[in-house]
């Protein structure tokens, strides 16, 4: 239920009631409510859950997480390599 899918905002619509946008999920386009991300602009990535945008995703944070995991992975590869050497 709490599954959310990252998508890209490609069009922001003027609508009555709540603010809506068109979201591109890797080629599939769907409408979603962006009332909770007033700062969002076209080109931003957001997690959509039940047709509702939960946040604006941070690419910088994502890349930092991946580089941290890469470091952990490298250290373990090195440890394994050293064990084999011994």
């Amino acid at each position, binding site marked *: *239920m*709490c*599954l*959310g*899918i*990252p998508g890209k905002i490609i069009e922001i619509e003027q609508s*009555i*009631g*709540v603010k*809506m946008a068109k979201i591109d999920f890797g080629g599939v386009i*769907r409408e*979603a*409510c962006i*009332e*909770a*991300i*007033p700062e969002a602009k076209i080109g931003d*990535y957001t*997690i959509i*859950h*039940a*047709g*509702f945008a*939960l*946040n604006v*995703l*941070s*690419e910088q*944070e*994502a*890349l*930092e*997480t*991946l580089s941290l*995991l*890469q470091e*952990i*992975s*490298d*250290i*373990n*590869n090195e*440890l*394994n390599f050293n064990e084999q050497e011994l």
Partner: protein
Amino acid sequence: MNKNFNFSTSFRNSQLVKGVVEEIKRITTKPWTIMEICGGQTHAIMQYGIDQILPKELELVHGPGCPVCVTPLDQIDRAHAIAAQTNVIFCTFGDMLRVPGSSTDLFSLKAHGAQIKVVYSPIDAVKIAQENPDKQIVFFAIGFETTIPANASSIIQAKAFGLRNFSILVSQVCVPPAMEAILSSPSNRVQAFLAAGHVCAVMGYWQYHPISQKYQVPIVVTGFEPLDLLQGILKAIRQLESGTHIVENAYQRAVSEKGNQAAQEIINRVFEPCDRNWRGIGTIPFSGMGLRSEFDEFNAEHRFNVEHIKTQESEICIAGQILQGLKKPYQCPAFGNVCVPTNPLGAPMVSSEGACSAYYRFSLNREEI
């Protein structure tokens, strides 16, 4: 955006997965029991076989974070009573169709002619109400903090349109009170939590600090991709092994300490905390979000006068114990024989997030079962 980067697939990199699993193996010296709160995480763990590549000392137990599973039987029977009425179009997320009530399910009602529509979003139900002014449109507003803003936006939208034929049957629940209920149970086995990433995307994680301190339990905000889950597990084990207990964030790209304050404001505009009964667990004080009195016109329980409906659970199903991490699905006598996805006894066998359904789909042939 960097052309080699993708918000989903970059977090499925097999080389990195191997490296992080190695690190988890290297630092784990004792047996530990970790609970993932969210049913979406349970499914990802089973789907990617993450439980199979972790050290044997680690046990992952599955939490109550499946809204379909914890929606009380009373409320499901009320949904059925409303959906069976001839002037009603009953809108629901697809997961609810097969959830057994005490005598039927929405799927069977639909087969008998009830107008039941599966919607992707609560806003879609508002659209159906606009298009069918001579019908009563009822949306089954189940969900955790992740879904509550979407449910709230349907009410804001319906009010803006001045719709008099739209209402919602509310069964919304919040995670922190459920965590406290699990931790304060005498039979609790959980030593660390992976908090539900998308709940935290909305609510932040400031609410978890007092829980972590009071019960001395590490809580790690965790996402849904394999590397997210492994990073969450790694952070939890680091804390368990070093005897610390703080709240950490392993889902930085999506979650901040304060969460999405605009979404929280939307929730609070329409809903307020209330006591809520959790299927299989019982009533947890202030664990629900009910409609504020100024939105009472949108309350389906009052509009259709179904509040009096009360019902009894099946005796054989151990869903309650599974939802609290006390038992695994294969410890249920009905699992895989009497209770299967096409004939579920309890909600965890129905939902795409239920632990029983995850075990049935992904692990029926594993050795331990």
